[in-house]
């Protein structure tokens, strides 16, 4: 197993390998859907280049091998992006949080991946790398189709960079458990910049998980909120727009309707809290 990133790149360039970080997705899939274990495994959990949480020129930089337990204990995350700490605390239980990583959540690209809406809502950029060098992909362009990403097979996810835009607020909500996720789960992250009572909000982002084949942003809903303030009238309109805009994956109509309703309700609640009424 490689102890430095350069060694890992060399292994990947020589032959296909399956990366493993915390194994909390991969090990379950190996006993289940994948079947036989992959021939070549690449342990990325102990690569020092994928560790650590830091502040660099106005950005929060989080290594791909950072675990949910690391996120929950990080004073930097708590100060600069508490929504991420909240999200980490909702994932699995301690055993999963001790092993599961942010890089694994991104590469796994489940539409129900809880960290992904936060990355979309904060305009995060995902840094990937291979022997050929590093690449930067905006989170909004990373999740290309159901469980597909922009990651090449000889590449690793190295870290995410989250710009800490002045005045930005970010909220996270998750409804439904993972076990019940087939029928009830909705994950949402909303962010905006507040310019005071006379001006409206700007840079509004409404991102959701578990309502489409990939994590998505709700563009029409964002447009309703952009330049506005969370007054009762605006909030109602935003929630209605969201319900109309979503096309949840399930073909069972009642489930799709249920998810739209839940999503609209969560948004309504977040915006009402923001409006202080």
């Amino acid at each position, binding site marked *: 197993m490689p102890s430095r990133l350069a060694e890992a790149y060399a292994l990947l360039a020589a032959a296909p390998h399956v990366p493993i970080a915390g194994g909390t997705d991969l090990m379950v899939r190996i006993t289940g859907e994948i079947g036989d274990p992959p021939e070549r495994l690449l*342990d990325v959990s102990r690569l020092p280049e994928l560790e650590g949480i830091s502040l660099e020129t106005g950005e929060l930089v989080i290594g791909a091998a950072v675990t949910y337990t690391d996120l929950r204990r990080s004073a930097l995350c708590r100060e600069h992006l508490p929504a991420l700490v909240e999200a980490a605390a909702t994932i699995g239980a301690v055993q999963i949080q001790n092993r599961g990583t942010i890089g694994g959540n991104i590469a796994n690209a489940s539409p129900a991946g809880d960290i992904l809406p936060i990355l979309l809502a904060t305009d995060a950029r995902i840094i990937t790398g291979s022997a050929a060098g590093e690449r930067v992909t905006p989170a909004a362009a990373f999740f290309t189709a159901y469980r597909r990403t922009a990651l090449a097979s000889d590449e690793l996810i190295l870290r995410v960079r989250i710009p800490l835009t002045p005045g930005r607020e970010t909220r996270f909500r998750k409804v439904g458990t993972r076990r019940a996720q087939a029928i009830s789960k909705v994950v949402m992250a909303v962010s905006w910049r507040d310019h005071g009572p006379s001006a409206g909000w700007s840079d509004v982002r409404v991102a959701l998980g578990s309502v489409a084949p990939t994590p998505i942003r709700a563009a029409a809903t964002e447009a309703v909120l952009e330049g506005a303030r969370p007054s009762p009238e605006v909030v109602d309109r935003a929630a209605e727009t969201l319900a109309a805009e979503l096309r949840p994956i399930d073909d069972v109509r009642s489930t799709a309707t249920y998810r739209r309703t839940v999503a609209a309700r969560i948004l309504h609640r977040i915006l009402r809290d923001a409006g202080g009424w």
Partner: protein
Amino acid sequence: MSAIRFLVNGAPAEVDVPGMRRLLDVLREELGLTGTKEGCGEGECGACSVLLDGQVVDSCLVPMAQVDGRIVRTVEGLALAARERGALDTLQEAFLTYGAAQCGICTPGMLMAARAYLDGGGGPDHDTIREAIAGNLCRCTGYQKIVGAIAAVAIGAAP
């Protein structure tokens, strides 16, 4: 295959197994440490919980490739120090006193999750104890007695 070396309950172990072999299987089948149980095999039940470098993990989700050079503690190791004075670990004593184990399937994993919680400085607050054992399912006890036993050890009131 290559030799994987690690420490189990303070003693060195060396096994020659495929890197994808689960830590759970190696503990039970290669090392005869059958205290660690398998429930779901998918990270949902916590019956297979052990400590890896002091952190509680589900051993059914840990491939051996990631165990090389690390420190593993199982339920058998809990009593090791205590056994020298002819006793059980205070947590094990408390589980007995409080009736926190019935069929016992969840108990080894529950003890390891509780041990990690207490070693990490966890206190007697019932809500935080419940969060610490949320990954450990128990079909028998309804959790109240388990939480009570852990809280008793946390405040030093255990038997």
